[in-house]
Structures are given as structure tokens and as C-alpha cells.
């Protein structure tokens, strides 16, 4: 198993608040790793550091064995897909134009992109009839499917998902969860998935990383977390979520 992404002593501070203490983490190829924790625990910060929407104060990040630098980040971003909670679709572009944006930007042939688009719409179960629509004409679930198509367009090695299902109602969410998991499996996709929902984490994760207050508290399977908590916070977090789901 090789690490596609490797963080070493990466830390991030905002003024006097520390968002992420020096942190080490490896993301294995072909696996889904889920970052979970309460709001403000640093899980989104970690994701945004990898795609360099924010810059780390110290430490290093390697992608595919090479350090990520300001010079190569734009090329690397094209090997990474990124989906956020609200989808991040550009409202002035149709679903189709959103998906094809980068492929056109880097000059891929129309034929190639068209075929890829058909593939993706089948993969994400997004009807081709809806492709000419603008984001505002789509439902929340449809928008997330388009966002996923856009992220997958260039066949990225890594998929970063920042609470992608957080804004959806439970039924839509359940159906998308199922579709997503199928897609990851089918593609053998390396995924880093951020959520605050334990059930979702358990459903997707090959490995769960629990974070709190800017640190990784424990990393492992759900069994590890339940039976061998590294810290009282781990049990507290798991029990709290179980309480909610029982209701």
C-alpha cells in the first residue's frame, strides 16, 4: 500500500488561534479515509491545506511522492477533485459547462470530453436531459451529482469531499450515499471524505480519523474507536452520536 498523500508536521494558525497543530497523516491509494469530528476541529482545514486553498505555516505535504509547492499546485489541482457542501457550481454556467470547464481550459478534444461526459452522467445517474440546465434550475441532490461529475471529469487520483451531503434532506442523502459508495468502489478511487456524521463515516470509511481541537485524536476502524478509545473524547463523541441516532 502506497501513500498517495503524506502530511508531515503540517500546522496552521490564524492570528492567535491554532486551527491545526503539527499533524502527520498518510492517505492510502484506493482507500476511503473519513475525517470526522465536531465543528471547528480542523478537519476542513486539513482538506483545504492539501489542495492549498490555505497555506500551511510549517511542515510539508507530498502528493504522489513529490512535495506540493506553489509552482506545481495548479497542475496538481487538476489531479484532485474537490466537492463542497453547497456544490460550488458556477451559477452562470449550465450543468454541462460546469462539468466541462476544466477540460476545455486545458484544451481537451470535444470528442474526448463528450464521451467522458456521457460516462459520468451514467455513473452519477444524472440524466443527460438536465445537462443544459443552470444550477438554479436543479435540485440540491442534482447539483451535488453535477459537482461530483465536475470533480471526476479529469479522472483525478484523489477526491476531496467536504461534507458533500450535508445540505441534503435524508432521503436524497441516503440515495446519494449509496451511489457514491458504488462509484468509489467501481473506480477504485482514493477519497478523503469530511463529515460530522458518524453513521456516514462508518458507511464509507476504510479508515476513520477522529479530530478534536486541531489535533488527530485517533485513527483506525470503527471497532478500534469503540473498543480501544485513545482518549475519553473518543468515547464521548461516539456515544453522543449513538444517542442521536437512537432517537
Amino acid at each position, binding site marked *: 500500500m502506497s501513500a498517495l498523500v503524506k502530511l508531515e508536521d503540517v500546522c496552521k494558525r490564524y492570528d492567535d488561534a491554532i486551527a491545526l497543530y503539527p499533524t502527520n497523516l498518510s492517505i492510502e491509494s484506493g482507500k476511503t479515509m473519513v475525517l470526522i469530528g465536531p465543528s471547528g476541529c480542523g478537519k476542513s482545514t486539513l482538506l483545504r491545506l492539501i*489542495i492549498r486553498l490555505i497555506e500551511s505555516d510549517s511542515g510539508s505535504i507530498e502528493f504522489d511522492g513529490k512535495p506540493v509547492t506553489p509552482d506545481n499546485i495548479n497542475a496538481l489541482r487538476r489531479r484532485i477533485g474537490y466537492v463542497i457542501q453547497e456544490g460550488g457550481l*458556477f451559477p452562470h454556467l449550465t450543468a454541462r459547462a460546469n462539468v466541462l470547464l*476544466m477540460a476545455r*481550459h486545458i484544451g481537451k478534444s470535444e470528442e474526448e470530453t463528450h464521451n467522458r461526459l456521457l460516462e459520468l452522467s451514467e455513473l452519477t445517474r444524472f440524466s443527460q436531459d438536465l445537462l443544459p440546465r443552470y444550477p438554479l*434550475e436543479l435540485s440540491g441532490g442534482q447539483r451535488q451529482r453535477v459537482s461530483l461529475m465536475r470533480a471526476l471529469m479529469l479522472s483525478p487520483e484523489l477526491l476531496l469531499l467536504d461534507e458533500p451531503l450535508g445540505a441534503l434532506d435524508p432521503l436524497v442523502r441516503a440515495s446519494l450515499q449509496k451511489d457514491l459508495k458504488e462509484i468509489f468502489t467501481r473506480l477504485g478511487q482514493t477519497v478523503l471524505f469530511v463529515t460530522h456524521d458518524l453513521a456516514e463515516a462508518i458507511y464509507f470509511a476504510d479508515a476513520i480519523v477522529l479530530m478534536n481541537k486541531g489535533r488527530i485524536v485517533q485513527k483506525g476502524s470503527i471497532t478500534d474507536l469503540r473498543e480501544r478509545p485513545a482518549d475519553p473524547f473518543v468515547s464521548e463523541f461516539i456515544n453522543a452520536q449513538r444517542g442521536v441516532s437512537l432517537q
Partner: protein
Amino acid sequence: MKLHCTSRSGGLQSAVGLRRLGSRRSLISAFLFLPTACTFAAPVVVGSKKFTESYVLGEIAKRTLTDAAIPAEHRQGMGGTIILWEALRGGQIDAYPEYTGTIATEILKSDSTPSLDQIRDSLEKLGVGMTAPLGFNNTYALVMRRSEAQRLGIRTISDLQRYPDLKFGLTHEFLERQDGWRPLRQRYSLPQQNIVGIDHALGYSALANGSIAVKDAYSTDAKIEQNDLFVIEDDLHFFPKYEAVFLFRSSTRADAIAALRHLEGTLDETRMIRLNAEAERTKNYARAADLYFNVGAALAPRTSGHSGPSHIDDSFPHKLARWTLRHLQLAGFSLLLSIIVGIPLGIAASRGGAIGHVILGFAGVVQTIPSLALLALLVPLPFFGISVRTAVAALFLYGLLPIVRNTATGLQDIPRSLRESAVALGLSPIARLWQIYLPMASRSILSGIKTSAVINIGTATLAALIGAGGLGEPIISGLNLNDHVTILEGAIPAAVLALLVQWCFDLLDRVLIPKGLRL
């Protein structure tokens, strides 16, 4: 004294822009070649102030030069004394009619009463020559309705001391002049407290309907006779002499100077009053000037449409087309500059920080300067002066703020998640700007441009104050002549134009704002 009339500082007065002879073509070409300030054939340029007599004298000078086979043009109604003087010294004009009293007090700032020779010597040192007097003295005077003067038994200014309740309506310039109201009041110990500043032309109406009792006028003003006014005698000889002369740059070609000198001593007061009256009656300055050259023929009443061959077609539709075209050129060209400069500034300002504050602060400050003041500030600068350039520059500055601010706001209003999505996709910074940020801000940017366009259409009417033409011409003429119809000839088309522009931009919104943002 005299700036006579009209023009006072506050003012829109002016008169007329009336007829620019010959000029449709030259106006347009001046505009097209604006940046290169054409000076090819280098005609002798005669300027005039914004009141009837100055226009007429300017026309006479132009005709005189033309008759002597010297190419000449007349820039009518450029402004007040200071503007004309600066234009003369700056080389934008070669000659203009002036009055000795004004030269002494306003230009040379002399406290005493210098002789003609002393004035000539002082001007010589400044590179300016002066003709001998043209023959009439146009001094300030106080006037009132003849019937009222008789009723009160007022003959001299000293008599006014007995009527402390009389209301005076004085031009703004007279109120401010060193040889104007304040020293006059002191000299005669006048007790009146009820003094209002009023435009010269409007003052005659106020006098007629009794809202004021006394106003300032100048002694060759045709309105004195027309309105049956009484000139109150200056019994203490307070008002200095205001003999009309031409000032010219010493470097002006010798044959032009010689031609102007032919005018010396040829115009007495009666004749000047008559020319002024003709000009005001017909609102045609060139025709009034004709009177000077051809007394017999010109005195005969002319049928309309009988203007000389040198006149362009001055039917109303043609004038309207000319004003409107010019207006659109002024507003359009300045708007284009505002867009070209404003959008990049808005992009820079949207990034915030010190630069953003400086940009928005500057644009905001410009907007707070009254438009008249901005024009006045630009006129003395070397590159500008009395020109279309100045008008375009002022309109450009006014148009800047709405575009800069709306561009900055439109960009700043793009949600952070969408900016980050554009970055995370790996789009280059330029692609992000062109494909994502600017289209998303297009509604705000276009609405800024629309605001600028409408403001420009309105403000461009002021361009006529510095002789740049447009629909302000009839408005300013009308104000000067107290002629409401003429004012409306400019005001209504300007308003209609503003509405049309607004409507065109509303249509443009549908083309330029991406459909996805209009859902």
C-alpha cells in the same frame, strides 16, 4: 466690471451658443482628433465671453479677419474674464474683446485707475497687446423701472439713501467685484440690507414683475431701452470707464493685428446698443455682426431663412441633431474611458487593503466635487483649457465612481465557496477572472455603467459652459436670454436621451448578463 452681465460666476448664463458658424464639420473633426489637438491650418482664434455684446464683438472680429483673407474662427461664450484671459495666455485663443476697467481691476489687479498707456505697458510685459478703444464705454450702472424712479423721485445714486427698504437684485459677479457692490455701497453710504444675487437675464424679469427694485446693468445693454428702464446717475463718478478693446497675443500674426486695429474707434454707444438689440431680437449673433459691416442692408428686416451662405442649416431639426450628436459623443467617449479605466480599478479595489481604500476614496472624493467646480479646476491645467478635452475629462472622472464601486462590490459579493471552487479546479488566475468572476459580477458592473451613462448624459449639459457644445447649448442660451422655449429645446431632449440610454442598457442587460444569473 463688466463681465457684464451675465455671466457671473455662478453661472450658467451665457448665452448662447448659438450658432456656430460653419461648424458642424469642424466640431466633429475637433472631436475626432481630440487627443492630438489639431493645429494644422492654424486659424486665428477669437474668443468671447458669455454675454451678448461679447459674442457680437467676437463675430465682428472674425468677419474682419476673414475679410482680410486671414483664416479665423470664433469660440463663442467661453466663460468669464479669468477663463478668457487664461485661454489667451495659454494660446488656446489669439484675441478676445475686453474692457479697460476689467483689465485694470480684474487682470492687472490695480488699485488706482491706470491710463490706457499704463495698461498697455503692463500687458506688454505679459506678452499681450491691446487695440485702442473701439469707441464705446460700457460701464456698470444701476437701473430701475422708469415709472418707479419717477414715483420715488430718484435721479441719482445718492437719492437711493432715502429708501432703505428698496430690494436690490445684483449679479453674483457685481456682488463680488473689487469695483462692485461693496465699494459702491461704501462710497454712497447706501443703507439697503435686502440684497439678493440673481442671474443677469433673470434679473430683468424680476425687475419687471417688481420682485426687485434695483439691479445692476451695463450701459450698452439693449434691455435698458426694451424694458423702459431708468439709468440712475452715478453722481459721485464711482464707476470707472469700461472702454471696449481687443486683447491679442503679441505673437499673433501681424496682418491679423493690423486687421483688428481697423476696428478702433468705429463703434459708438448708440451703434453698439443697436447691435446688441439686434442680436437679442434675432438670437443670431452673426446677423448682428452683419449690421456692423453693412448698415443699410442689415437694418432691413430679414425674412427668416435668409442667412448668408456661410451659415450652416440652422433649422431646429438640424440644430437638434447637431446638439444631440455632440452630446452623445461627449457622454459616449467619456463613458468609454470610464469603463476602460474603471473596471480594472474596480478589480484592484475588490482585493481590499490599502490600495482598495485609496482607489475607492479617490473616486468618492471626485464625485463630491460639484461639476461646475470640477470644470473650473480643470480649465487652468495646461493640457485642458477651454476645450472638449476638459469636458470629456470631467465627465470621465464623474463616470468613474459608479463603475469602480460596482465592479469592486460585484466581485466582493461572489461567495467565498465559489471563488475557492474556481481555485481548487486549477483554473489559471486569468481564466478565473474572465470565465468566473467577471461574468458573475456582470450584473453589478453593468448597473454601474448604466448609472454612469445616465449621470453623464445629465452632466454633459454643463459642457456647453466651456464651449464644448451638446444639448447644454440651448439650455445655457435660454438661461442667458431668459427664454424658456430655448431652455426646453435642450432640457427635453436631454431628459429623453437619458431615458433612452437607460432603456438601451436594460436591453443590453439581457445580452450581457449570463442567463443563469437571470433565473
